[in-house]
């Protein structure tokens, strides 16, 4: 078991390295030179050469990559090309917004959707189950900005509460003020992860419910509630943890569209700006942060999957 987890961690580390190579060299093949961009059109050739040396762009690519990686690991993400400010400063006041929205989404969305999904699995084929399935099937396939627009329509136009576009600073606001401030983005993201979570947790519990030992319990005459809470749910915990980790990984991408939609300053709006201004240093740094979060969550999902299922520990 321990050795398997270590092996997974090893594979995860290799993946992270591969990811860093893709991100670094993906942004290196581009036309355009960082020194040229920073100095502007009027710079002389000597100025640009000096800047190249300062930025380390005269080194061979593999050395640049190495320096970038070491810097990244020590928390130095470089200096933004478009605004000449260290990336860490740019991130500083924005990461709190992103973290706040995504962690609150997880705290609210995950328990509610798990409950709904497990309830659907407890009473399969009932009207409740069928409606829930239809709604989640529709939500899974709908784009985030559609869900967001519907919520704006409902809250802002029909009920006249909340603010459609979150503007202004979040400095000095209390916890509950922040919640009302971010109510719409958080609700949207909750819907986005709920559609998946409901489907997948329902499938996970139904999967356990169809196993022979549950059938045995039914034949023995164990009451339905006891079967679910004492027999089925315990064995479904592993798959459910797997499902939750996977969905939190999806949150990483969902947050990009939602941040841009509601226009509040977070990490995702920053990286989209980076792409628009072709600020490669910014894209490299933030891209790594997003991908790392994603890879780590996927790794947790993966470990949860085989920790819960002994059959997966002995591959053929």
């Amino acid at each position, binding site marked *: 078991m321990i050795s398997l987890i270590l092996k*997974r961690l090893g594979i995860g580390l290799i*993946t992270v390295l*591969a*990811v860093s190579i*893709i991100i670094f060299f*993906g*942004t290196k*093949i*581009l036309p355009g030179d960082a020194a040229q961009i920073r100095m502007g059109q009027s710079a002389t050739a000597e100025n640009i050469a000096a800047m190249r040396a300062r930025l380390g762009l005269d080194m061979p690519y593999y050395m640049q990559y190495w320096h970038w990686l070491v810097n990244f690991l020590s928390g130095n993400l470089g200096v933004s090309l478009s605004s000449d400010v260290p990336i860490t400063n740019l991130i500083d006041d924005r990461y709190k917004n992103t973290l706040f929205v995504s962690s609150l989404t997880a705290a609210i969305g995950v328990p509610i959707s798990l409950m709904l999904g497990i309830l659907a699995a407890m009473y399969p084929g009932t009207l409740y189950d069928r409606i829930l399935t*239809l709604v989640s*099937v*529709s939500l*899974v*396939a*709908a*784009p*985030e*900005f*559609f869900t967001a*627009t519907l919520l704006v329509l409902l809250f802002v*136009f029909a009920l006249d509460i909340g603010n*459609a*576009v979150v503007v202004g600073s979040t400095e000095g606001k209390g916890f509950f003020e922040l919640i009302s401030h971010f109510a719409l983005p958080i609700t949207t993201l909750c819907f*986005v*992860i709920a559609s*998946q979570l409901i489907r*997948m947790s329902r*499938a996970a519990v139904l999967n356990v419910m169809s196993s022979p030992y549950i059938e045995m319990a039914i034949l023995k005459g164990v009451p339905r509630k006891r079967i679910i809470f004492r027999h089925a749910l315990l064995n479904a915990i592993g798959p459910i943890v797997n499902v939750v980790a*996977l*969905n939190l*990984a*999806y*949150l*990483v*991408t*969902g947050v*990009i*569209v939602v941040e*841009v939609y509601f226009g509040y300053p977070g990490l995702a709006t920053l*990286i*989209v700006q*980076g*792409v*628009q201004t*072709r600020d*490669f240093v910014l*894209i490299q740094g933030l*891209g790594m942060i*997003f*991908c790392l979060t*994603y*890879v780590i969550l*996927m790794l947790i*999902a*993966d470990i949860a*999957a*085989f920790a819960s299922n002994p*059959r997966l520990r002995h*591959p*053929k």
Partner: protein
Amino acid sequence: MKQNDHYVAPYDENVSFDELPDAAPSARFRLSVTGWIGAVIVTFWVFIAVFGPALAPYGENELPFPDDYSEFQLPRAGAWLGTDVADLDVMSRMMYGAGRTMGISFVATTLAYLIGVVLGIGAAVSSPRVDMVMSRINDAFLSLPTIMLGLVVVAAVGSSIPVLMVTAGVIYASVIFRLSRALGQEIMVMDFVEAARVRGEGRWWIIRREIWPNAAMPLMTDFGLRLIYVILFISSLSFLGLGVQPPQADWGSMVRENLGALQYGASIIPVIAPALAIATLTVGINLIVDDVSAHSGGKLSKRL
């Protein structure tokens, strides 16, 4: 780009593929009510995509009321869905955008299939060493969020319709690689393949005559599901302003263009109409795929 498009366990072959559609429908297969609803919606949008530009009352960038200025963009005679921020007719732009959104996605998905299936089945019939190298490289791509890859590519080469097609095609090829490799491997160990090999048939003959006929139907069912994810991916990129560029219309960028005017009291219809169009299209495809999956025989995911 919807989150679930990566629901394939990145490292472990044994983790089940719950998200995969099931095997081929039987010959007597019939759509249920929800399936028919999906089929009607999809047919409607395909019709609009093909004939939209010809039927549109105005040109894509033609002002419906050149002398008139509408502050709140509300619907009125001649512009039934209202006008957008640039005073263009929303309905006409949607009819032009339909073909673009759906066309790009369709070409990208087809491209993803060409790459994914060729490499995936290739990996399945290759030596274990080649197979392992290909799969590991593929896993690295799979462990990246698709939208991130899209952002990096667009930052690198700029956005244009061919770039979008190729980017989405290459990104989604990795998911199809996994699926077709798994299918190929599964078929490779079947008795009839064994028999063909003992008979002395070549590798190409086995791919053509044994693997392809058996893999084709499950792959076709999966196509619908991938198409949904590619449509969402392309629309999301356009929504972020990194996909189809103005003045060309597509549904994702229309949502973006009109979103800003909302806070000045503009009508919400120019925002909700294209978003609703994408949602009905993808939900329609999903209804068909779900129906086909539910009525098919053994669940493919169980056999993988």
